[in-house]
């Protein structure tokens, strides 16, 4: 190894190590603050306590919001998985000429400003006479979750060799069984990861949801931002730490089922 190579390698690994620390900083800080005893976020905390978790347990406003957000995310993810998987299969099998353009359209909500999408939907829903908060939220969240499913399942399917299904049928399997035995296992990892990211994207969405929530129906990020702005105490750190724990759990399950590397292939 020459001197230049050695220096370049040191620079690359130093910056990578810095990035790892940088990326994990907010998570570590949140968890540390949540276990502190002080009400004013001093780091390191004077002493450790569970009082903010107790406060969280007593909170009457947070848990209904968590439940509403989970329901919304689960429902829109299921709808997106159904619509998106069918769509990916249809586009790939049909050799449709404009399919790349269609995929770009389906994935575009990820790249356009959420606020702009939210405003456009708000105005159109209003004009169409739709005022129900819950229905509006579900309609909007399917738009947020669908791109994850379409993008990942489409990419996985384009690597799938459909003649394998024909091969299975030649070997005597009826069509539905051939699909179950060949296509479903090949697609499962893409299905799981995209569903997971779709769910998390829905749970975390602020800029679109803010236009549809009202005083009675709120989603978690909206309630949390309001909390941070109005009464910032470490209760918010405690719920954040629980969310980090949940994310870590999901990550471990994802690693077992799919593998971290394949999850990064998104």
């Amino acid at each position, binding site marked *: 190894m020459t001197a230049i190579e050695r220096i370049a390698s040191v620079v690359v690994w130093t910056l990578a190590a810095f990035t790892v620390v940088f990326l994990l900083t907010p998570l570590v800080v949140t968890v540390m603050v949540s276990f502190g005893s002080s009400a004013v976020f001093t780091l390191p905390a004077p002493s450790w306590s569970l009082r903010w978790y107790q406060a969280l347990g007593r909170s009457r406003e947070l848990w209904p919001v968590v439940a509403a957000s989970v329901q919304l995310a689960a429902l829109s993810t299921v709808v997106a998985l159904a619509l998106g998987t069918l769509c990916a299969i249809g586009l790939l099998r049909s050799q449709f000429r404009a399919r790349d353009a269609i995929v770009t359209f389906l994935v575009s909500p990820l790249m356009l*400003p959420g606020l702009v999408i939210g405003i456009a939907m708000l105005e159109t829903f209003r004009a169409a006479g739709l005022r129900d908060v819950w229905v509006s939220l579900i309609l909007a969240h399917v738009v947020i979750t669908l791109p994850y499913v379409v993008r990942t399942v489409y990419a996985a399917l384009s690597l799938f060799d459909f003649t394998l299904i024909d091969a299975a049928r030649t070997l005597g399997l009826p069509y539905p069984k051939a699909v179950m035995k060949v296509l479903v296992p090949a697609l499962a990892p893409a299905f799981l990861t995209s569903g997971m990211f779709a769910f998390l994207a829905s749970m975390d969405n602020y800029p679109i949801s803010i236009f549809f929530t009202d005083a009675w129906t709120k989603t978690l990020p909206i309630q949390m931002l309001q909390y941070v702005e109005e009464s910032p105490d470490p209760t918010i750190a405690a719920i954040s730490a629980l969310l980090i724990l949940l994310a870590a759990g999901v990550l471990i399950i994802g690693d077992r089922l799919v593998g971290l590397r394949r999850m990064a292939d998104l």
Partner: protein
Amino acid sequence: MTAARRLDPVILLALPAVLYLAIVYGVPLLVLLGRSIMVGGVPSLAPFVGFLSDPFSWTVIGNTVRIAVMVTLVCLVIGYPTALALSRASGLAQALILVAIILPLSVGVVVKAFAWQIVLRRDGVVSQLMMGLGLWNEPQRLLFTEAGLVIGAANVFVPFMILPIYSVLKLVDPRLGEAAATLGASPLYRFFKVALPLSLPGIVTGIAFVFSMAASMYVIPNLLIGDRFQTLATLTGRSFLFMRNEQLGSTTAVVLLVLTVAVVVGSAALSKRLGGAS
């Protein structure tokens, strides 16, 4: 391609999703665009002329572009080496980098912005660290400054720079570098002539992603810099949610939309010319 193939009934499977998105998302965007150029039922560019002739608007557009460019640059400078390291790492190092990228992706943006509020305060970790290193003489806050906003935003968006670059880099055959070395190319020459050009499509995709997200972020500026500093996105949100000025909000929304679409479409074209899959 024959007519019979184009009319393959399998395409019907794609119809529900396409129709759904067209109605719930496509139509509203067209309606927004249409409304933004209609004043009292007559087509008119007056709102845009009015907006663009106000010096305040240019401050806001300048803030938006400046912050987005700085966030993108920071993400590129720390993201490229990380993607490079990830493509060469194995075992524990690889797992660590992957966890550091994926775990924060699944933690909400409010949580992260809140944590940066704590880190960037006058008595926060950064201030204490800089004092400890002797770089600062007295505690300073980065919270409510542009630097603080860039740090917090880069933290949230850097995975979106790393992942596309990594996905291109891992496809690069390591033997290419060896071949170049055998032919007598120096390490730097090899990097600039082999690895860098091959990873350009990933870089372009990453830049487009990070730039468009940084230009449209709303929650992060709210928590890290406050409402004296406006970008197109925060002004849009505020016009609708607090000021109840829908005219202004629609105008800023369309300006922001045009800016992000230009970057996304331009980068997709560039990435295609560079020969990568977008």
